[in-house]
């Protein structure tokens, strides 16, 4: 099977998510050496490591966000290579670009793939409460992969053959610039212990309970999206697809149901403890320990006992 992987380049950097695409391709049994890759990157930057053909476009020419241009260049590559699958990350870049390819190619798009079973693609539904197995009916399929669902065992390696692509610049959409969230000085991605607050904390005052436990464990406190949206916690502490992806030694999820977007941001943690009154919450899928309790009751007791150690 021939697969075209689409890597993402942003703010001057090639994103590491391309390795997840490589891992997936491996699982699908892509012809080794025939895996092609497309990237809009400065020729001088570090290139993705794999063995195959790399179609490379000049970012200063095509822009980091220019969907029509990127689509056109990709369609040219597809016309040449005729892959069976085109795979992107399910990211703000991927879900923006993939449907355009799907329509142009009249190909099925299967989004947010988390697993492959018997060659069929599996994706979550209804906040992760259900999962769907899907099959494409056409010759070509466009797929986007959930962040962190697939990972390479070991480092990416190889040197691709570079083929330059480009064309007349066009596009109705203009990228004007980027802005980062206010940096509060905290970098959750470096913390070894993270204790996160979910909707279950109920009130902004209760975030303090979570922060206290984090402090006693010598870690940092984070939060799921609803807590950040409610402005109870800064955005730079948000864990999840639109926030940070973390992989600490210990992750304690307090009152977090385990929506897909949140799980994607923390499921690579080494040890996961969930505290939730609902035993069926999807956070249970990734929890090593699930304490069925009200965090408002458990956290103070737990913090006190830990302090006494």
């Amino acid at each position: 099977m021939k697969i075209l992987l689409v890597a993402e380049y942003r703010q001057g950097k090639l994103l590491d998510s391309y390795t997840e695409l490589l891992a997936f391709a491996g699982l699908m049994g892509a012809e080794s050496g025939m895996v092609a890759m497309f990237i809009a990157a400065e020729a001088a930057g570090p290139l993705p490591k794999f063995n195959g053909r790399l179609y490379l476009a000049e970012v200063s020419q095509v822009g980091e966000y220019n969907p029509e241009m990127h689509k056109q260049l990709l369609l040219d590559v597809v016309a040449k290579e005729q892959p069976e699958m085109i795979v992107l990350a399910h990211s703000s870049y991927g879900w923006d670009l993939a449907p355009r390819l799907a329509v142009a190619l009249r190909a099925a798009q299967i989004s947010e793939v988390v697993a492959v079973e018997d060659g069929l693609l599996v994706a979550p539904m209804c906040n992760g409460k259900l999962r769907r197995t899907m099959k494409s009916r056409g010759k070509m399929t466009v797929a986007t992969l959930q962040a962190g669902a697939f990972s390479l065992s070991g480092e990416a390696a190889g040197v691709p053959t570079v083929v330059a692509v480009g064309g007349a610049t066009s596009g109705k959409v203009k990228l004007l610039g980027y802005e980062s969230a206010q940096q509060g000085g905290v970098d959750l991605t470096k913390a070894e212990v993270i204790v996160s607050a979910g909707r279950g904390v109920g009130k902004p005052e209760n975030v303090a309970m979570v922060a206290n436990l984090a402090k006693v464990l010598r870690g940092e406190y984070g939060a799921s999206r609803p807590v950040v949206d409610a402005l109870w916690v800064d955005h730079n502490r948000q864990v999840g697809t639109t926030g940070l992806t973390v992989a600490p030694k210990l992750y304690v999820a307090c009152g977090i149901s385990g929506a897909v977007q949140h799980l994607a941001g923390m499921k690579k943690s080494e040890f996961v403890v969930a505290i939730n009154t609902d035993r069926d919450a999807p956070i249970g899928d990734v929890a090593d320990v699930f304490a069925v309790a009200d965090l408002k009751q458990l956290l103070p007791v737990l913090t006190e006992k830990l302090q006494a150690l």
Partner: protein
Amino acid sequence: MKLLVCIKQVPDMESKFKIGADGWYDRQDLAWRMNEYDEYGVEQAVQVKEQTGADLTVLCIGPEQVKETMKKALAMGCDRGVHIADDKSHLKDSYEIASIIAEFARDKNFDLIFAGMQSQDRGSAQVGVMVAELLGLAAVTTVVDFAYADGKVTVKRELEGGVKATVEVGLPALVTCQLGLNTPRYPTLPNIMKAKKKELLSVPVADLHMAARLQETVKIEFPEKKGGGIFLEGEVESIADRLIGILKAKTAVLA
């Protein structure tokens, strides 16, 4: 100026889901509501309407019951509704849905189309962009900030890691809305009453459904509980003690 906002009626995600006979989730015992992402779309569309005096249509595909959700959109400020009557919309794939919408919109010359970034039940995040592609419109996804002035739309896209990208696009265009774009208004009672009188046309889906299905759902099931998780239940004191014991044994965190 003509605006269109596309909405979907989805089950409330707090519901307990069951697998239905037709290979989808069982529609019994579910509470229904407007797709959360679409609420932001409706609110933004209404704000543009208030700003420019544009005419705003809300469109929804589904069985008769989706009209309840459409009434909420009308009560928030849409001028008219188009209900594409389809009892089997849940079995259609994103491409079919998008082509139905595109078929409806094709000759209507909408200047701006709003859609939710994804639906809460399927989460494919495809329909919005596909509609734009089928209509040949510019599209920008994942919008968390929106401003319209002098025929130009300036939005901020929400990227990963808390980064936002400012993007400008001219009309006609389509945007897909991310959570937090605005604060969807609570419909006032006079608006709820007016909504009852607003035009709400039903169009049989057969009139617009021409595309072929590109994918099929082989099955829907409950995810396996990844085994190995220890459950701690009972008195809070005892849970805390046991948890500390486990952390000592299985992690280096309490060393």
